């Protein structure tokens, strides 16, 4: 399958896994249902982004931040997500901090030339890793 960078769809295999985690064991999810949920998820992202952006604009900011997204959830009547999201965010921030410190240590051991190179790549690393995982997901057989 050709990979289009403008693809607004989420990987089928990941969506299927998330759906199965939410349902009792053995429930059959039709391909049509899975595809519909995937589209719904993309629409959700757009709706959430638009909503969060309104909060950023209100705060006279150009960058969407965590509180904008949380406010958007409340606005969209998904208050039930706010608690779990806050918890996950804490874990995520700890992880990111840990990673950053690990990279700093790595950098200290390297040449000054190499140091500049890895700092540039730092931001791309996460994305690259995610994209690799994406590819793997899409290679899985769709049943």
């Amino acid at each position: 399958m050709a990979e289009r960078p403008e693809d607004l769809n989420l990987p089928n295999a990941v969506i299927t896994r998330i759906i199965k985690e939410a349902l009792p064991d053995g429930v059959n999810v039709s391909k049509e249902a899975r595809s519909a949920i995937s589209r719904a998820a993309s629409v959700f992202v757009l709706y959430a982004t638009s909503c969060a952006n309104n909060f950023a604009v209100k705060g006279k900011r150009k960058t969407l931040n965590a509180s904008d997204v949380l406010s958007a959830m409340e606005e969209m009547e998904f208050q039930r997500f706010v608690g779990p999201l806050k918890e996950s965010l804490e874990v995520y921030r700890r992880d990111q901090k840990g990673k950053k410190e690990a990279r700093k240590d790595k950098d200290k051991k390297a040449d000054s030339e190499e140091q500049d190179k890895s700092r540039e790549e730092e931001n791309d690393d996460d994305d690259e890793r995610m994209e690799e995982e994406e590819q793997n997901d899409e290679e899985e057989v769709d049943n």
Partner: protein
Amino acid sequence: AARLSGAENRLVSLPLSRIRVIMKSSPEVSSINQDALFLTAKATELFVQYLAAYSYKHGRGKEKNALTYSDLSHTAEECETFQFLADILPKKILASKYLKMLEKEKRDGEVGEGDEEDEEEEDEDETVGEDVGS
């Protein structure tokens, strides 16, 4: 190749890069900080679970141990929280039923002359309520 790393143990399964692409497709958005990106991805996962579980619980698919498209479109129509999905999850009508409806309408318009067909009881009279698109 089999994936042995328990994906369920990861903090978020949806790829952040893809979520970012979707978010950036909104013209009014300039930039997104990393935390906001993470939260949006995580929220989307929670949303998928909620939509699936809710639709299964309130739908008729579970009579056959399944989650069907119909369950989802039913949710979009009935539940206020999910109404923003109504346009992309429309109620459906089977093509065969629609064609039969068209045929019946056509026949009703024709002048019958003691035709056997006209006297037969036809299935098309059955209305399958929830399948009819509005």
